[in-house]
């Protein structure tokens, strides 16, 4: 008990103390968070009328970000599989940081859903037992379950590993292997359930295609690892953490396959819609060509497509994949490309045209942008704090006190 309190203060001190660059970064994030919070309080007071969403397009930027981030969280599995199943050592060493990305992403997901609610104080209504969760009928209920489960699994894995490391011990794989094995299908499930959330209603023909869940997964396995590629390089530069080039190149290679599949699935979708030429092609037509003269998203979608194709080529060719200039270029292109494709391109066109044929060209309002920025800053803050504690533990610079220390 005494140890526990002591150790808590050790951890706290580690998080609070830092150099000028650390404080500057934290302050920067806190300013963004404050700005987002202020904007959110305004939205809370006045209602979602402060957003650009309306009855025609009733979900927008918040849910787009939510969907993108579920993908990022799910992509942690792309590190877990080579690390634990194939014992690819270079990745095994950094899988911890990947799981922390998952924790951060899920937390952000939950925030994005919360800020999208009209009655956020009633959020307890969707909890099981306490509220009146519509399980198994509502996919949103499923999503609540799988997302909190995934958060729990990753938290458990990370905390356990850090706890053991901080005591100077190796963690016992046999103890956590079941959880690790569970995390693999679970990661797939969070993104599948999120895809099914949109997929299940014939009211929205754009989503009502069985290719949706595979497309979600494929694009997730592009964007998530691309983000980690960038993060790992920053880590390597700023801290003592050693990350082998081999690990990064391996991740890049996996991204290339995922992007190949992603583009293939998009092609399959495009063929089916345009060759059959039924009325259900309207949303896709809106995205890439414009519909009835409305074409707000067309330049964005075409840009995203070009980005994805360029990144695919970069990551596919070993020479460009293993050159850090092109590798980073590719990673940025993928993050942007998938963010646009998934955010604007997969969520919003589900409502365009709406179920009575109206075309309302949604574009996020100022307030939506600020709140979104605030949540991203909050995510960055969580991840920074996690790293601030985890890195010295990982490198062996920080150790907890324990009577039973060996």
């Amino acid at each position: 008990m005494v140890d526990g309190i002591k150790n808590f203060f050790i951890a706290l001190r580690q998080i609070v103390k830092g150099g000028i660059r650390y404080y500057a970064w934290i302050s920067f994030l806190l300013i963004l968070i404050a700005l987002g919070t202020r904007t959110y309080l305004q939205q809370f007071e006045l209602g979602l009328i402060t957003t650009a969403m309306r009855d025609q397009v009733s979900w927008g930027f918040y849910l787009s970000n939510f969907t993108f981030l579920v993908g990022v969280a799910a992509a942690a599995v792309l590190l877990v599989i080579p690390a634990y199943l194939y014992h690819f050592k270079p990745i095994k060493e950094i899988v911890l940081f990947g799981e922390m990305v998952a924790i951060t992403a899920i937390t952000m997901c939950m925030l994005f859903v919360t800020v999208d609610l009209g009655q956020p104080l009633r959020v307890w209504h969707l909890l099981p037992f306490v509220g009146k969760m519509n399980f198994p009928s509502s996919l949103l209920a499923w999503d609540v379950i799988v997302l909190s489960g995934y958060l729990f699994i990753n938290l458990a894995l990370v905390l356990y590993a850090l706890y053991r490391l901080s005591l100077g011990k190796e963690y016992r794989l046999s103890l956590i292997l079941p959880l690790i094995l569970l995390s693999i299908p679970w990661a797939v499930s969070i993104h599948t359930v999120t895809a099914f959330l949109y997929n299940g209603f014939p009211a929205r023909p754009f989503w009502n295609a069985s290719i949706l869940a595979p497309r979600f997964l494929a694009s997730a396995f592009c964007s998530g690892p691309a983000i980690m590629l960038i993060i790992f390089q920053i880590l390597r530069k700023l801290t003592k953490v050693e990350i082998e080039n081999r690990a990064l190149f391996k991740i890049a290679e996996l991204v290339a396959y995922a992007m190949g599949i992603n583009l293939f699935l998009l092609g399959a979708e495009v063929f089916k819609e345009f060759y059959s030429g039924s009325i259900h092609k309207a949303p896709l037509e809106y995205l890439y060509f414009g519909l009835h003269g409305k074409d707000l998203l067309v330049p964005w979608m075409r840009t995203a497509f070009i980005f994805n194709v360029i990144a695919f080529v970069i990551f596919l060719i070993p020479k460009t994949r293993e050159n850090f200039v092109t590798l980073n270029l590719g990673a940025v292109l993928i993050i942007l490309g998938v963010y646009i494709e998934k955010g604007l391109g997969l969520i919003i066109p589900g409502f365009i045209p709406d179920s009575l044929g109206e075309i309302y060209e949604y574009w996020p309002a100022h307030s939506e942008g600020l709140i979104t920025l605030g949540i991203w800053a909050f995510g960055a803050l969580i991840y920074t704090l996690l790293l601030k504690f985890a890195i010295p533990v990982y490198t062996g610079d920080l150790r907890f006190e324990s009577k039973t220390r060996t």
Partner: protein
Amino acid sequence: MKGKFISVAIAGLFILSVSFTAGSAEHTQNDEKKDVPEIFFPGTLSSENFPCSKCHRFRPTDRKQRDLKLAHADIVLKHAEKQRWCLDCHDGDKLRLPNGELIDYDKPYILCGQCHGTVFRDWKAGIHGKTTGMWNGVKVYRICVNCHDPHQPKFKQIAPEKQPLRPTEIKLNLR
């Protein structure tokens, strides 16, 4: 004319002063089954409202189609007007069926139903025309002339209510 009837009908509805027509036992000449509605709004007219004979008994009968100048100049017939004229449907203080039978003004639907059989059938079933009252109790019907001007039965155009706001026009109302 018909527009006036409608507005009278709607306005009157909210006051809900339903006038019941006492089932008169006079109409034995028709072998209509008792499947016609009995309660009407705003009520039917009786022949006393049409004291035609007061003037017409002084005038010779003229069956020719012509522009009416002396009286009834306000009536413009747009109801299969090439095939009929006043006396096809009017006779003395009564309405006249095609077979020559005379009926009272309180049951004009019998006359209309002679040509518009399917509409008459729908009306009796509550499908044609407006029904108010209680869906599980006493229903209040309108008779043909409550909504249609018998001389120009086609509805006239009316002004619509305002169109809804577009989503871009629905904005935060800061006052």
